[in-house]
């Protein structure tokens, strides 16, 4: 008799626990909450940042999230992470990120902002170039910048570099990276063969260097992948090293060069030299008011 009472008690307890476990999601569903949203609770430490469209030309469309439809890109549009932009012939879209980094999406390209958020004193940027060409740059600032651009050929880590030209043709397994100013990049092909790519050098899908073209850039400091702190990764930039600040709202200090500033794109042979000093320009000292992204933090 005692065994029967104990076993029935256990059975009742299990049944109650099962009913309670099922009733909780049902209650949330009844309130119209999306379970995925309830799982993702934004903390104070992590905050999504925004991307602003500075200029548009040609046919360019954006999809702010996978469940939304494509629409035309317009100037002063503000996007958050998850936005995708695709361009057609003779199109160009200039994006300014809230941490003063920028991306210029060229013609026949597809670009996606996977992650762009601040966590503590660290700004994490993860973007993806499916195909096409972009020009990107990271401004050095007081915050720690973890900036990476992934492609089907590999992942590019950027370290306080201005004007990185990245071209990806996944169909032909072809890509080009060209650095036009100081800074450092790393290239991880994902096949275990981490390494750096010479400025203007080409790499195929396996990470094998293809010396189809050779464009030389002066003052380039290439950072092999893995040579920096693992947790910080490539693209880590500490400290205020001074540079022209970029104000997407129309400031005068615009580091984005105009045409003809790709000084190092002439043919040459000394592309493997790591002679450049890393940053350290004598620009004006940054102040919090010069950096609009601070307002968002």
């Amino acid at each position: 008799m005692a065994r029967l009472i104990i076993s029935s008690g256990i059975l009742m307890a299990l049944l109650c626990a099962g009913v309670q476990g099922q009733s909780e999601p049902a209650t949330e569903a009844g309130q119209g909450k999306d379970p995925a949203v309830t799982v993702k609770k934004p903390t104070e430490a992590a905050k999504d940042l925004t991307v602003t469209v500075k200029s548009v030309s040609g046919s360019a469309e954006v999809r702010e999230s996978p469940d939304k439809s494509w629409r035309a890109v317009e100037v002063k549009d503000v996007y958050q992470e998850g936005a995708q932009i695709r361009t057609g012939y003779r199109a160009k879209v200039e994006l300014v990120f809230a941490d003063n980094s920028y991306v210029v999406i060229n013609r026949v390209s597809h670009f996606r902002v996977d992650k762009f958020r601040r966590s503590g004193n660290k700004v994490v940027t993860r973007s993806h170039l499916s195909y096409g060409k972009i020009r990107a740059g990271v401004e050095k600032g007081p915050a720690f910048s973890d900036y990476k651009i992934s492609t089907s050929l590999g992942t590019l880590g950027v370290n306080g570099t201005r004007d990185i030209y990245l071209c990806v043709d996944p169909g032909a397994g072809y890509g080009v990276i060209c650095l036009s100013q100081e800074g450092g990049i790393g290239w991880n092909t994902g096949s275990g063969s981490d390494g750096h790519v010479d400025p203007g050098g080409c790499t195929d899908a396996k990470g094998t260097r293809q010396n189809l073209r050779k464009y030389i850039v002066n003052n380039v400091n290439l950072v092999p992948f893995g040579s920096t702190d693992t947790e910080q990764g490539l693209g880590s930039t500490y400290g205020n090293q001074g540079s022209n600040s970029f104000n997407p709202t129309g400031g005068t200090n615009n580091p984005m060069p105009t045409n003809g500033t790709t000084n190092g794109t002439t043919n040459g042979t000394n592309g493997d030299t790591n002679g450049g000093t890393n940053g350290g320009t004598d620009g004006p000292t940054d102040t919090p008011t010069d950096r609009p992204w601070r307002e968002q933090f």
Partner: protein
Amino acid sequence: MQKSKRWIPAFAGMTLWIVVSLVVGLGGCAPAGVRGVRAFEDLPPAEGEVASDAEFLFELSEKKYCSTDDAYRGMLYLIDGTDTSRDFEERTARLVMHGVANKSWPHNPNAVATKGKVAYMLVRALEIRGGVMYNITNGCPRYALRELIHKGIIKGGIEGSKISGAEYVGILGRADDRRHPDQEYKCF
């Protein structure tokens, strides 16, 4: 008199040969696809919203293979900036009118596009003069492809190589660079 009688069968035979040649030449031996090609002139634009080139290129990049229809669409977007054709026949007619596509090709919309044909069209669309062999052979696809490989627009392959959607998007991007050069991106 006997001499003139001897000439009659020869004259009749020659006439018959000419007639047969004309009949065959004017239509009998034409490739099947060419019969459907309509005149380009006075074609009204397609009704409804036309897909943008950005949309077309994005969808094409996700396809495993580039069909002939996709290849023609991409070429029209490159040349005209838009594609208002209602169907494949109209698209073909426009390209033939532009002098880009060869009228004698078997135009099959579902066939996978080859690098030779794409090169043939691109050389004409980009108005590339070509080399000696290209001109001697009157622009055959084989030497058109070699010309584009030399110029870096197509990254290798042979005449009969099939083209994937992503690869064709890359080719079109480089072709657009050549048509409308952007000095900022000259390093590519």
